[in-house]
């Protein structure tokens, strides 16, 4: 028997009945924003924690960002709970931001 997801249970309890597709649009937009920010900070951070040569650091950051973007998006969008997905993408973004700010 298919189990009920927290989001559908919540919407049923609150009396709001929105189709999954409509909820998924907003979820995708939210995840996209978080993952984009994380990828941006990875590229910026690579200049700090990456190789000393700026060209190499930029290239390394972009390689990681392009690979991380789809993986992180699918991971965050694929979790059953939107909150959990947001936390995963947000956590990666925060770590990447800290690497930009704190790395000497």
């Amino acid at each position, binding site marked *: 028997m298919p189990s009920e997801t927290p989001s559908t249970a919540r919407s049923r309890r609150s009396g709001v009945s929105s189709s*999954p597709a409509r909820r998924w649009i907003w979820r995708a937009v939210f995840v996209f924003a978080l993952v984009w920010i994380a990828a941006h900070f990875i590229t*910026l951070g690579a200049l700090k924690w990456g190789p000393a040569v700026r*060209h190499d*650091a930029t290239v390394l950051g972009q390689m990681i960002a392009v*690979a991380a973007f*789809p993986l992180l998006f*699918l991971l965050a969008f694929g979790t059953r709970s939107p909150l959990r997905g947001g936390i995963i993408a947000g956590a990666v973004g925060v770590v990447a931001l800290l690497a930009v700010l704190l790395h000497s």
Partner: protein
Amino acid sequence: MQDTLRTRMGWLHAWVGFAAGLLLFCVFASGCLAVFDTELTRWLQPEAPPQTEAFSPQSLDHVLPAVHDLLAQGEKPFITLPSARDPYLRLEHHDGHEFLTVPYNPQTGERLNVRATAGGTFFYDLHYTMRSGVYGETVVAFAGLALLLTIGSGIIIHLKGLISDLMLLRPFAARLRAWLDVHVVAAVVFLPFILLMAYSGTFIRARTLFPPVSYLASVENAFRASAPSTHHTSEKPAVSIPSIFPPLAPLVAEAERTIGAGQTGYILFQPQNILISRTDASGPLLTREHVDFSPEDGHVLRHVLLPGAITHTEQVLKGLHYARWTGVGMRWLYFISGAMGAVMFASGSIIFLMKRRRQSGERLMFRIAEGLAIGSVVGMPMGALAFFWANRLLPVALHDRPLAEGHVFLAVWVLSAVSGMVWSLLGRPFQGWKIQLFCLAGLGLFLTPLDVVTRPGVTFFHVPTVFAATDLVAFFLALVSLQMARRL
């Protein structure tokens, strides 16, 4: 609809795939043509003799007056040295869209009298910018990210049947089933290639998506630049172009001592230096190693070769994506894989529409989507074939001929998109598909007669097979479009 991983991924795959897929179809179709850009340029300049003499380095000096003229016009001309792939000496420059090329006799340096054309590099520019400069580049890079998402979600959906789907093609099954089989077989069999192209292509253009500067700083700079400046910065004095360049043969010999015998590929001319760089055909690493010479007296200025593991990784990714080092066999494999990538997007878009036709077929958005699909899936190949027709039919003496060829391509594409949209909005999309598919078939079928009639000195056993290969591919495309019209 249940909220499960598979349904979520199915939704993502369908919508992101359809939205980006119409553009990615054009990217893959133009990409697989760009693999043969040099060969297509030979088809587009049929006056160039099929056989040429051996290369003599002294012939390079005969090209120098034309180089000087281009430099005076503010261009960055370069000479491409003859190779096994292309026997001519070519003087090239970028006109803002594609590399315009003029062939020279490699023995005497005499200019060959050929028609002006945008050449095969037209499709190269189309592939990564859609002829829209940096904005187009950004949109295509963005579509590359969407492709990676679509591939990931597609793998999750088909994970269980990934191996069994490899050989499951039922062309005579029910229509939706047959299209699904085409989509899955094209995607699964060519998955490694599509994944490699998606990652390397997006990475190559990553500077437009993920620049190594903060977005906030970029916005601040944009406002700062637009504000009126009170400082008057003195402009750098323009570097004058030397009136006479040194003889090029000794420079090439000197460069070969550093880069390796037979490894030089390009000679780039700039007012301040002459760069002789390694040929792209030398290996999978696209190093662009170069030796710089003074344009005044030809002494060596420096030797540039970027070291480091990360740079080498970048060069391998570029080398694998551009495939300029490969032989004819590998080039055909790239072409077929790229074509199958395009088939994957076309079939995916058709499945998307088929699945929603019953429920949403009357809605305006559905009709617009179908009109766009017709414009992309049929319109782009029609534009490409029209480009070849224009090359042979436009007057040879026409002013700005390369631009006119590009305009014909765009005009046919736009006409196809508008016509598809009109048929779709009128509620007769099948009419739109079929008319355009028959037009596409006609353009493809009659390209061979056109080639035979308009090619000077045509013989049945013409030595460069580029003519026969191009005509046969167009013929095959015509057959595919006829079959597609039958099975819609």
